[in-house]
C-alpha cells in the first residue's frame, strides 16, 4: 500500500490558503443531509462537533464520561501556544513552526506543522470570543508565559487550568448546538468497533454504559478524537479512563497506526510513592518559568534541601543547556533527571526524584506573585505530598504523559480508510518524536475548529449522503463480534482483577520500553507481553452479567486492548534503530548522552497495518519530505 500524504504543492506558507480555496464545498442546503459521528468530546472532538454543526451538518457525539465536559482535556494545566507575537519578542508563524519541527526532532510532516502554527492565532481569538478567561495584564491585554523548547513567550493561560477553560469554551459551543437540535450527545457511551462498508468508514458499534446495550450508529463520516494511550504504561499523568480502544479497534479494521513508539515522558511529575498508586500527577511545565531544578553534587547526600549550600548543588539543566536552562524540552529534561538519579544523586525515598525549587523566585518577587500564578498547582502538590512547596522545594520525577504516535492521517486528517478522520492526540500528525509544551491544546483546537470543517467538506462533496443503514451485514457482524468479546470477558471467571494485569503490563513497559530502550529490553518485553495476555484471558475476573453499569467490564475491555497494543508499540520501538525525541535507544547516543538520529535510514513515518491475529503487522513508510527545513542536530546547549 502506498501512503499518500496529500500535501498540496506550492510554497510552504501558501499551501493551506491555496488548498482551502481549491477544496470542494458542500452546498449549505445539502449539509444537513450528512450525518457525522464524532467520537470523543475533548478539545478536538468538541470543537469539531460544534463547528460542523454550525455549518449545518447533523452531528452525533460520543464519550464515555457522564458529560462531554469531563473529557481528559479538562486536566491540562499550563497553557496553549499561539504565534501572536503580542510580546514583541520576535515570535512569528515561522518561528512557532520551526520550534515545533525542531522540538519534534525532525520527525513530523512540515506542511501540517506549518498549518498548525498558522491557525494558532485564530484559536486564541475564537476562545476569547467564547468567553475563555485568559490571564490578562493590568492594562487588559492578554498575558503570556514561556514553555519549554522556546525562547519567546507565546503561551496563553488561565491560571493552572487552561485545559479546563478551553474545554468549557468548546463544550459551551457544543451545548448551544445541542439546544438548537444540530448535535445529539451520547455521554456514557463507549465505542467498541469501527464499521467499514465498501472500503469506507460508515459507522461505529457502541455499548451504552448505563444499560449495557450494544448498538450501532451510521454516518457519512466518522471522526475519532479519542485522545492518547499513555495508560498503556499503567501509571501516567492521564485520567484513569484514557485508553487506546477506539484507535486500536480502527487499526484492527485496517487503519494504519503511525509511530506508536513516540511516547512522551514529562520531567516534572510527583514521584511514585507506593505500589498501590493508581496514577501520577503532573506539575505543569509552566512551573519551570520560576522554579529551578537541582540535585546535590555528591551522590548519597541525605541532608535536607535547606542544609545543602548553594555551592554543593548541581543545577544540572542550567549547567548542561545554558541557553534554554530549566526550559529545556521535555525529553531532554527527563533524560537528564534519569541520568542524575542513576548516578545516585536523586533525592527522596528510593532516590528517584530531583528538586524543583522556588525559593529564588519567592525571594525575588514575593510569595503572592507565585501564589497568583501557580496557586492551584501548589495546592495540588500539598494535597498529595502533605508538604508545603512554598517552604520546601517540590520533589519531582519524570512520568508518562503524552503520546505523539497515533492513527496515520494525511494532510486532510483523513486516515487510510476513506471517511475516517482522526483529530487531536489520537492522530500522529504534528509533534514528530517529541511534543513541545502547550502544543497539544493548540493542535486539538486547530484540528477541530479550523482544519476538519474544511477538509471534511471536501471529502463529503465527493459522496452522496446516506445509502447505508444499521441493518447492513457489516454492522450486524461487527455488533456480533463486540457482543461475543464482551461475553468472552465475562466467561473467564478468574480471580485476578483487570487492574492487576494492567499494573503488570505497566511495569514491563516502563522498565523495558520507557525513558531508555534497547534491543535487549525490547525483546524481553516482546516475550513477556504475549504471556501476560494469555494469562489475562485465563485468569481475569469480571463479575456480573454485562447488563447495566459495569466499570469492571469496561476496564477489562480496555486492558485487553492495551495488552495487544503494547506489542505493536514495542515492535515499532525495536524497528527504529535510532534515537529521536522521546524514543531513546541506548545503543544510539552521542558521547555526551544525547539522542543520535539516523536521518539516512529513518527519516520516515512508520505506519503499521494489521494483518490478522497472531501475524506481525506490515510496515508502510511515508518518507518525510524536507522542502523548507534542513534537519540538523537538535541542540539546546
Amino acid at each position, binding site marked *: 500500500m502506498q501512503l499518500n500524504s496529500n500535501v498540496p504543492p506550492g510554497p510552504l506558507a501558501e499551501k493551506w490558503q491555496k488548498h482551502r480555496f481549491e477544496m470542494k464545498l458542500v452546498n449549505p442546503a445539502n449539509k444537513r443531509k450528512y450525518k457525522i459521528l464524532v467520537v470523543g468530546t475533548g478539545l478536538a472532538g468538541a470543537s469539531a462537533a460544534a*463547528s460542523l454543526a454550525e455549518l449545518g451538518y447533523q452531528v452525533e457525539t460520543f464519550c464515555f464520561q457522564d458529560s462531554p465536559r469531563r473529557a481528559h482535556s479538562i486536566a491540562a494545566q499550563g497553557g496553549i501556544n499561539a504565534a501572536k507575537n503580542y510580546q514583541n519578542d520576535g515570535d512569528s508563524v515561522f518561528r512557532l513552526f520551526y520550534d515545533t519541527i525542531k522540538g519534534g526532532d525532525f520527525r513530523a510532516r512540515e506542511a501540517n506543522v506549518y498549518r498548525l502554527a498558522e491557525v494558532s492565532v485564530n484559536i486564541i481569538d*475564537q476562545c476569547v*470570543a467564547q468567553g475563555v478567561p485568559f490571564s490578562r495584564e493590568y492594562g487588559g491585554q492578554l498575558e503570556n508565559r514561556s514553555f519549554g523548547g522556546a525562547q519567546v513567550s507565546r503561551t496563553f493561560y488561565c491560571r493552572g487550568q487552561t485545559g479546563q477553560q478551553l474545554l468549557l469554551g468548546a463544550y459551551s459551543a457544543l451545548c448551544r448546538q445541542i439546544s438548537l437540535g444540530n448535535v445529539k450527545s451520547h455521554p456514557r457511551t463507549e465505542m467498541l468497533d469501527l464499521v467499514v462498508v465498501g472500503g469506507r468508514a460508515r459507522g461505529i458499534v457502541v455499548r451504552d454504559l448505563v444499560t449495557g446495550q450494544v448498538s450501532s450508529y451510521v454516518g457519512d463520516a466518522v471522526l475519532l478524537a479519542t485522545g492518547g494511550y499513555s495508560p498503556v504504561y499503567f501509571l501516567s499523568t492521564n*485520567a*484513569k479512563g484514557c485508553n487506546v480502544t477506539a484507535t486500536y479497534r480502527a487499526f484492527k479494521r485496517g487503519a494504519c497506526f503511525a509511530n506508536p513508539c513516540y511516547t512522551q515522558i514529562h520531567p516534572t511529575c510527583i514521584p511514585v510513592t507506593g505500589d498501590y498508586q493508581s496514577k501520577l500527577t503532573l506539575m505543569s511545565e509552566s512551573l519551570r518559568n520560576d522554579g529551578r531544578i537541582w540535585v546535590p553534587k555528591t551522590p548519597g547526600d541525605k541532608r535536607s534541601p535547606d542544609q545543602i549550600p548553594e555551592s554543593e548543588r548541581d543545577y544540572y539543566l542550567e549547567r548542561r543547556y545554558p541557553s534554554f536552562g530549566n526550559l529545556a524540552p521535555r525529553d531532554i529534561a527527563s533524560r537528564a533527571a534519569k541520568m542524575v538519579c542513576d548516578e545516585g544523586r536523586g533525592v527522596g525515598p528510593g532516590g528517584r526524584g530531583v528538586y524543583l525549587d522556588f525559593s529564588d523566585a519567592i525571594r525575588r518577587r514575593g510569595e503572592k506573585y507565585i501564589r497568583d500564578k501557580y496557586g492551584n498547582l501548589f495546592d495540588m502538590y500539598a494535597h498529595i505530598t502533605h508538604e508545603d512547596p512554598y517552604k520546601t522545594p517540590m520533589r519531582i520525577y519524570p512520568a508518562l504523559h503524552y503520546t505523539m504516535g497515533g492513527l496515520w492521517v494525511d494532510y486532510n486528517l483523513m486516515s487510510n480508510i476513506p471517511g475516517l478522520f482522526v483529530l487531536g492526540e489520537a492522530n500522529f500528525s504534528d509533534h514528530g518524536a517529541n511534543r513541545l509544551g502547550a502544543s497539544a491544546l493548540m493542535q486539538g483546537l486547530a484540528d477541530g*475548529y479550523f482544519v476538519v470543517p474544511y477538509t471534511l467538506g471536501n471529502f463529503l462533496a465527493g459522496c452522496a449522503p446516506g445509502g447505508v443503514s444499521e441493518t447492513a451485514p457489516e454492522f450486524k457482524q461487527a455488533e456480533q463480534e463486540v457482543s461475543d468479546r464482551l461475553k468472552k470477558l465475562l466467561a473467564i471467571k478468574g480471580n485476578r*482483577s483487570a487492574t492487576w494485569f494492567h499494573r503488570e503490563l505497566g511495569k514491563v513497559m516502563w522498565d523495558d520500553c520507557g525513558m531508555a530502550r534497547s534491543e535487549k529490553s525490547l525483546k524481553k518485553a516482546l516475550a513477556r507481553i504475549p504471556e501476560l495476555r494469555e494469562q489475562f484471558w485465563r485468569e481475569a*475476573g469480571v463479575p456480573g452479567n454485562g447488563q447495566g*453499569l459495569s466499570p469492571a467490564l469496561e476496564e477489562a475491555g480496555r486492558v485487553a486492548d492495551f495488552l495487544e497494543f503494547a506489542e505493536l508499540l514495542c515492535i515499532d520501538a525495536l524497528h527504529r534503530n535510532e534515537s529521536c525525541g522521546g524514543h531513546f535507544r541506548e545503543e544510539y547516543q552521542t558521547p555526551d548522552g544525547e539522542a543520535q538520529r539516523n536521518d539516512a535510514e529513518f527519516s520516515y513515518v512508520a505506519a503499521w497495518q494489521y494483518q490478522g491475529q497472531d501475524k506481525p503487522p506490515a510496515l508502510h513508510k511515508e518518507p518525510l519530505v524536507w522542502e523548507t527545513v534542513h534537519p540538523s542536530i537538535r541542540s539546546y546547549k
Partner: protein
Amino acid sequence: MKFTLHVWRQSGPNARGEMKQYEATGVNPDMSFLEMLDVVNQELIARGEEPIAFDHDCREGICGSCGIVINGVPHGPRRRLANGKIEAKTTCQTYMRDFTDGQHLWLEPWRAGAFPVIKDLVVDRSAFDRIMQAGGYISANTGGAPDGNAILIPKRDQEKAMDAAQCIGCGACVAACKNASAMLFVAAKVSHLGILPQGQPERAQRVVRMVEQMDKEGFGNCTNYMECEAACPKEISRQFIARMNRDYLWAQTQDLETTSSGGAG
C-alpha cells in the same frame, strides 16, 4: 490502617438500595480515598463479587467526575489547614491519613431528586448539562472572531470571571444543600459569562433561561443555608448567587428575545 466501610449498594436505577459493610485492611495512610476503594474492589473481584461502582476519571480534582458523601459530608470531611483555612477538595483529593485508624466510614451517593442513582455511588448529573444547554454559552460561531486583544478586559474582571469559571460541575453544592438547590452551580456559570464584556449581549436571556431550566429539573430553592459554598471543592463564593439574583431581577425588566433558543445560531 484499617477501616470499616458502610457503602450504599444499589444494583440499578430502579432497584432498592441498602448499606452494606466491608472491611478495608492494610490501608497505607498515603493512599487516596479512591485508591483505598480500588483495593477493596480488587478483593471483591477476586471473590467474584460486583465491585463498588463510583465515578472518577482525572483523580486530581479537575474533571468533576468523582463525588461520594463520606460520613455525611460531600467529598468527605475537610481539614483545617496550617494557615487556618478550611481545605477545599474533591473525593479524589481525600487521603486516608486524614482519617483515624479503625474508623467507620459511611459512603453514600449524592442525594437529590434531580440526581437519580444509576448504581451504587454513581448518580445521573445530566440535569447540569441541560442547564448549560439552556443558555450557558456565548453565541460565537467558529471563524470571524476579532483579535484577542481587540477587547481589553481589566485584570480585576478577568480574575473574578475566572473565580466563577473554575467550577468543575461535580454537584457537591447540590448534595450539600438541604433543599438540593443548584444555585451555586448556575450562579458560577452565569457570573463567569456575565462579568465579561463578550457575555453582555446575551446576559439577560442567559440568566433567565438557565434559571428556568434549573427549576424544571427539580432542583430546590435557595434558602441561604450556604452549605454549598462550604462543600465546594473550588471555593466558589456565595456572592455569585447574590449576583445572579440581581441579574435575574434586572433581566425581568429587559425585552427578552424568547422565540428561538440558542441565540443567534
